[in-house]
């Protein structure tokens, strides 16, 4: 079976700084893939490369078998990659409902002129966008906040809304950048269950960057360890946990 996402010898340099060097990563469909590594290891850069915010200096990125290197972020999103951000980037002044609708909207098909004159496919499209947005919020337990502005939500719910918004793109690959950042142990445990549920319900492949080892070890089928832009190790949680190089570089005494 061919991989859903394939990163082939990708290198990313910012001036003299080499953020990612000769990185190889292959993610099969249906897998939850964890990426760990110390700060500055190039994890977020890798996400920015996959989603087209940066263009790699060298190497190719393939998704669903075709080359997406150099595509614009919007095109990559429409091709089926959704993401969240390390420092939440919601549309803060917009309502919770509009936040997910904007992601759904990109799958609506009506012409600007149809919108300007309120004719044709416009009406049905709008109905559909509201219904689907509300449905998604319902599933995430956010429906009661639909009319609130996103910035009025408490922190944890903002994180959850960001995941909902990423799923509204209807991705086959979901990239989560530190979803448990700023959460305590109990919240992290709840998040683990929540992500497992999403994975089953939306049939989505996941790549997540995370520092909370319990979350990564419990959720992921496969783990890649990055250090200074290089792949240090790769394998199942058990293999990675046992890898002496990883223990030395990152996990310290083996249990963070």
């Amino acid at each position, binding site marked *: 079976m061919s991989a859903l996402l394939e990163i082939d010898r990708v290198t990313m340099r910012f001036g003299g700084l080499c953020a990612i060097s000769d990185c190889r990563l292959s993610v099969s469909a249906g897998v939850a893939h964890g990426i760990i590594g110390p700060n500055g290891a190039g994890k*977020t850069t890798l996400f*920015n490369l996959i989603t087209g*915010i940066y263009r790699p200096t060298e190497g190719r990125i393939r998704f669903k078998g075709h080359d997406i290197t150099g595509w614009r972020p919007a095109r990559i999103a429409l091709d089926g990659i959704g993401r969240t*951000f390390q420092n939440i980037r919601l549309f803060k002044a917009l309502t919770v409902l509009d936040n997910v609708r904007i992601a759904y909207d990109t799958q609506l098909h009506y012409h600007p002129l149809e919108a300007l004159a309120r004719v044709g496919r416009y009406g049905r499209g709008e109905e559909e966008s509201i219904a689907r947005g509300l449905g998604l919020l319902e599933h995430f337990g956010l429906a009661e906040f639909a009319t609130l502005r996103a910035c009025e939500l408490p922190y944890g719910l903002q994180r959850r809304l960001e995941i909902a918004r990423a799923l509204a793109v209807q991705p086959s690959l979901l990239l989560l950048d530190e979803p448990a950042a700023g959460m305590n142990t109990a919240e992290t445990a709840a998040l683990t269950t929540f992500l497992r549920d999403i994975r089953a319900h939306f049939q989505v492949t996941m790549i997540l960057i995370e520092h909370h080892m319990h979350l990564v070890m419990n959720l992921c089928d496969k783990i890649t360890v990055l250090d200074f832009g290089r792949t240090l190790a790769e394998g199942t949680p058990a293999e990675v946990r046992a890898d002496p190089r990883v223990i030395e570089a990152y996990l310290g005494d083996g249990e963070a």
Partner: protein
Amino acid sequence: MAYFAQQSVNAISLGFLYALIGLGYTMVYGVLTMINFAHGDLFMLGAFVCLLLVTFSPVALPFPVLLVLVMAIIGGLGVLIERLAYRPLRQAPRVSAVITALGCGLVISNVTLSISPYSRAMPEVFDDRYFNVLGVGVSLLQLLIIGVSLALMVGLDVLIYRTRFGMALRAVAFDAKTVPLMGISVNRIISLTFLIGTGLGGAAGMLYGMAFPVISASMGVLVGWKAFIAAVIGGIGNIRGAVLGGFILGTVEIFSVAMLPSTYRDLISYSLLLVILIFKPYGILGRAPNVKV
């Protein structure tokens, strides 16, 4: 050939003036990444302050004293505007600060217009003389403009790259969030930047008034914004870029007026700006800012 040489001299002195005004835009942009739209109007005010000083001073003020006074007054006004109108908006969306700057500029120019609705003649500050260098007429005034501009630019370069203040200024320009942690007062650096930047604008206004001795309230928009074009062409935020841009624009203007009807001058300058902004938005020597995701 003589005609060409004559126009070249004119282009150089105009280029120096544009560069001098452009430096103010570029300094503020470098430190605050904000376009100080009011700068052109402060430049205009420089000419008017000079006119007031010459007219109402009981004793005839020599040129260097006049220059320092104009720079101090305009620089002080620049600091005041920053303190009252820009500083409260430093954390606000950047568009707010741009709008405020545009508003301040319009207030200054229209106050001047309301007080002095007509153009005024600039009195002579000193006796001008002409020299004939290889068949090319060069006035003492042109030499003075070139000399003073050059001195101010070299002074600024030394200040920014050779002094502690300059180092602090570059640090603020690089990362305004970290600098306070090093015990540097960002506010003081920004105030000083405005003092120097708008002071240079004032000096340019005075020199411009002497070179083209009919001054009016619309000078800020007509000339000041041109200088801004110069700064953008060279690469805004970059001191050397401002000088380069000033020369390019000065040359283009002088030679387009020499070859086409003079009404085409603005059309050509602004079209040049549009083309540069579209194809090389950060100018010839400028660099694109890094966006952190």
